[in-house]
């Protein structure tokens, strides 16, 4: 559909605005893996309320917007649990080892002109591209 890139741009501007608010008001970097991971492994329990309310916003705004889509929203997620579990474990361990994901290293890190953000983003995009080629075109599991 032709409109999809416009919604991509609008959505992107909203995501960046969220990151700007979190940085300028709260003084924090909007990195999803850091916010979730800090709660999971206990390294950020001192600021748990801020993290939980942030995640509540991430979870609840789609709940509020969902009724505006009469045809629903298909996420095309695979029903192969083995794939989902392997992918989730890789994302969980990988983002903690790299100290960031798409939001922290990409959305926040690159506009900060952070070399680590740029290197991480290039790396996970290349890995993701190779992954899709291998698992989709070669092995046919996704």
């Amino acid at each position, binding site marked *: 559909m032709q409109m999809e890139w416009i919604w991509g741009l609008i959505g992107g501007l*909203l995501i960046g605005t969220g990151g700007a608010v979190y940085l300028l008001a709260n*003084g924090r970097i909007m990195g999803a893996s850091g916010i979730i991971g800090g709660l999971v492994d206990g390294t950020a329990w001192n600021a748990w309320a801020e993290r939980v309310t942030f995640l509540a*916003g991430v979870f609840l705004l789609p709940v509020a917007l969902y009724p505006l889509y009469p045809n629903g929203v298909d*996420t095309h*997620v695979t029903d192969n649990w083995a794939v989902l579990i392997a992918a989730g*474990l890789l*994302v969980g361990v990988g983002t903690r080892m790299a100290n960031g994901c*798409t939001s922290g290293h990409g*959305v926040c890190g690159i*506009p900060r002109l952070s070399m680590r953000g740029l290197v991480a983003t290039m790396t996970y995009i290349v890995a993701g591209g190779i992954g899709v080629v291998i698992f989709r075109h070669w092995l046919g599991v996704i």
Partner: protein
Amino acid sequence: MIRNIYAFIAGGFFGAGLFVSGMTDTAKVQGWLDVFGTWDPTLAFVMGGAMIPMFIAWRLRERRSTPVLGGTFPPAPPQKIDHKLVVGSLMFGAGWGLAGLCPGPSVASLSYGGVGHWVFFAAMITGMAIAPFVIGRYTRLTTAAA
């Protein structure tokens, strides 16, 4: 309290943006990564669009000594490109390509994505919980090899 309200607003913008941009649709993410398939450019617009307010925010940050709500700004990022950054990003990218989900969209899609999103989310949380042990083991192995 006010910090939590602003955190909720920031998370709300993030969640709304992920939702309207289609970034919780795994087919769009994998379609962008799949340069050999029917390439979907959406993700590039999302990333590019998100970097515009963030770029302005970092410039505004330079004019302030403290955040609006007090406290301190995050310290300057380390410049060192270590192998943990690269190995971790390789693992993350592989998982991202495999399922088409990363941490932000995995939270945003929990209410409507169905059971598959919960399976991914639970596995991701498990991965984050075991990460300190995996990273510790990895550090010992690489230090011993060096």
